[in-house]
C-alpha cells in the first residue's frame, strides 16, 4: 500500500510538472463540449426553399406565405421555370422546390383537389426525410385552413371530421438537441482523455528507459499498475465534474437522477477505459503506435455508440458488435440518469456489463504486463 502511494505521488508530480498537460486535459475538452454541443445538432433548419408559381392566384400566394412564415424555411427565390429551378438545385443553391401548377386555385375550388410538385435534394437522406415531414405538415395545415372556405354554401355537413394526432415528447419536451447531445459528448471527452493518457503513459516510460529501471525493482505488478492508473481515474472523474457543471450552467441540461449514481457508474466505467489503455501500452513500443491503436478503437467506439446515429437503425451484425462497446453503455446511462432520472435498478444491466468489462480488461492488462521478457 505504501509503495502504491509513492507511485501515485510521483505520477501526480509529473502531471502537474508538465505545464502544457493540464490545459490539454481540462481546457481543450471543455472547448469541445461547448462547440460540439452547439454544432452537432440533428435539427434541420434554414432549409433553402424555392418555388415556381404558375398560377399567381391568391391561393398560391397564401400557400407560399405559409412556407415563408415557417421558421424552418428560408424562402429564397421565385423561379420562372422548372429548368432554372433544377439548375439551381444542381448547384446547391436550393434544397426544396415547390411547383404550383397553373389553375391551382380554380381546380381546388372546382374539384376540391389539386396536385403540387415537390422536389427535395436527398443527398443527405436523413435531412431530406425531415424536410419532407415539415413540408407535408405545412401543406396539411394549409389544407385545413382552406377547406371551410371551399365548402361554403351549406356544404358544412360534408365537413370531414379530421383526426388530429398530438405527439407527446417525453424526457426532452422541448426537443432540444443540446439536452440530448451534451451528455453524449461529455461521455466522449471523458473517454478520450482517459484512454489517451493511460495508453501513452506506460509506453512513454518504455521509450525513455525508466520502465526498465522499474522492472529491476521488487515492485509488484499490481502495485505498479494501480499506482499508475489511479491518477488518471481521478482526472477522469474531475473531468466529469467540470463537464456536468458546464452542462448545467451553459446548456441548462437537467440532472434528474442521482449524482451519486452518476459518479458510481462513471468510476467503474473509467476503469474499463484505463484497462484498455494499459493493454494497448503493453503491446506497443512507441507512443506513436499507441496513439494510432487508441484512435482506431476510439473511432469505432464512438461511431457505434449510439451517440450520433441510433443503434436501432444499424444492421443486425453491427448491433451485435455494439454490445461489446463500453461507450454505448455510458451514453445510455448518462442520458438515462440525467434526462430520465433513472435509478440504480434501471441502469443495473448497463452497470453489470460495464463491471464485467472492467474486470476483463484490467485482468488482461495486468496479465500482459511483463516485468521479465
Amino acid at each position, binding site marked *: 500500500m505504501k509503495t502504491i502511494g509513492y507511485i501515485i505521488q510521483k505520477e501526480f508530480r509529473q502531471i502537474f*510538472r508538465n505545464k502544457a498537460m493540464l490545459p490539454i486535459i481540462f481546457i481543450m475538452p471543455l472547448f469541445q463540449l461547448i462547440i460540439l454541443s452547439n454544432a452537432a445538432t440533428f435539427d434541420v433548419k434554414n432549409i433553402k426553399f424555392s418555388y415556381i408559381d404558375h398560377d399567381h392566384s391568391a391561393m398560391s400566394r397564401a400557400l407560399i406565405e405559409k412556407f415563408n412564415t415557417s421558421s424552418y424555411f428560408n424562402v429564397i427565390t421565385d423561379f420562372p421555370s422548372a429548368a432554372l429551378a433544377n439548375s439551381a438545385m444542381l448547384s446547391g443553391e436550393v434544397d426544396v422546390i415547390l411547383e404550383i401548377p397553373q389553375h391551382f386555385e380554380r381546380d381546388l375550388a372546382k374539384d376540391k383537389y389539386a396536385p403540387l410538385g415537390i422536389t427535395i435534394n436527398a443527398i443527405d437522406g436523413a435531412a431530406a426525410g425531415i424536410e419532407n415531414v415539415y413540408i407535408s405538415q405545412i401543406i396539411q395545415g394549409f389544407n385545413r385552413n382552406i377547406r371551410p372556405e371551399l365548402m361554403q354554401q351549406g356544404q358544412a355537413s360534408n365537413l370531414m371530421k379530421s383526426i388530429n394526432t398530438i405527439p407527446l415528447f417525453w424526457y426532452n419536451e422541448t426537443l432540444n438537441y443540446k439536452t440530448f447531445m451534451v451528455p453524449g459528448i461529455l461521455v466522449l471527452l471523458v473517454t478520450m482523455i482517459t484512454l489517451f493518457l493511460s495508453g501513452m503513459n506506460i509506453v512513454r516510460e518504455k521509450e525513455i528507459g525508466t520502465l*526498465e529501471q522499474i522492472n529491476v525493482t521488487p*515492485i509488484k505488478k499490481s502495485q505498479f499498475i494501480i499506482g499508475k492508473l489511479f491518477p488518471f481515474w481521478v482526472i477522469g472523474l474531475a473531468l466529469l465534474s467540470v463537464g456536468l457543471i458546464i452542462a448545467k450552467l451553459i446548456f441548462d441540461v437537467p440532472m434528474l437522477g442521482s449524482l451519486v449514481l452518476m459518479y458510481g457508474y462513471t468510476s467503474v466505467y473509467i476503469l474499463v477505459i484505463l484497462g484498455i489503455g494499459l493493454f494497448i501500452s503493453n503491446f506497443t513500443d512507441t507512443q506513436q503506435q499507441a496513439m494510432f491503436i487508441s484512435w482506431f478503437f476510439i473511432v469505432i467506439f464512438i461511431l457505434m455508440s449510439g451517440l450520433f446515429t441510433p443503434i436501432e437503425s444499424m444492421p443486425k451484425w453491427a448491433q451485435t458488435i455494439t454490445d461489446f462497446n463500453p461507450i454505448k453503455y455510458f451514453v445510455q446511462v448518462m442520458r438515462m440518469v440525467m434526462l430520465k432520472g433513472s435509478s440504480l435498478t434501471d441502469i443495473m444491466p448497463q452497470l453489470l456489463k460495464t463491471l464485467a468489462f472492467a474486470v476483463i480488461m484490467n485482468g488482461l492488462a495486468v496479465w500482459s504486463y511483463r516485468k521479465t521478457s
Partner: protein
Amino acid sequence: MTNELVIQAENLTKTFGSFTAVDAISFSVRKGEIFGFLGANGAGKTTAMKMLIGISTPSAGKATVAGFDVSSEAEKIKKNIGYMSQKFALYDDLTVKQNITFFGGIYGLSRAQIKLKTAELVEELDLKEVVNQLVGALPLGWKQKISFSVSLLHNPKIVFLDEPTGGVDPITRRQFWEMIYKAANNGTTVFVTTHYMDEAEYCDRVSIMVNGKIEALDSPKNLKTQFGVENMNDVFLKLARG
C-alpha cells in the same frame, strides 16, 4: 574479499530466434569483488546482464544471483540488487530529491530512512545546490553519479552497472570510480560493463566476451601476462579481432 560466491552462471544462454546473443557462458563472482564485464558492441554483455538482474529469462543454462535462481526467483533477486542502466533512467521531469524519494519508496524504505539517505547523499555528492532542481537540467556527469547513488539506496548486495561512464569526462570518470571503490569497500559486489580499457585495469577480475562467448576471464595482471602485452587495450584488441 571472501570466497563467498554471489553470482554463479552455468552455460547461461539467450537466443532470439536463430540468433544466439549469449552462448553458454559460465563464470562466478565473489562477494565484494569488482567484476569487469567487457566486450565489443553487440558481444552480448547487456543481454547477459539482463538475465542476471531478472528482466530477461534465460533460454538455457542457469544462474544464481545472491543465492536465488534467475529463472524462478527473479523477484527475490530484485530485492538484493541495484541496477544502473545504459540508458539514463532517473526521471528528468522530477527533481533530484523527488527521484530519491520515489526510488527509495518503491524499494520499501521508510520516510525517515529516505530523509536520512537524502541528507547523506547531499553531503557526499555535494548536491546542496541542485537537490531541488529537475534532473533533466543537470550535466550528464552529475546524473550518472546520482543515478549510481540511487541504485545503492537500499544497500543492495550486488550492484550492476551497464556502461556507467559512457560519455562523461575523465575527471568525472575518476570520481565515479572512487564511488565504485567505496561501495566495494563497504562489501557491495560491483558488476560493471565498460568500453574503457583503463577502467578495466581498476577491476579485480575481468571477463571479455566475443560473439556471445566468454573468451578470457582473469585479473587484469594475469591477462596481460597471458597475452604477453603491456595493457588491457592490447588484450582486448587481440581477443576481439580474433
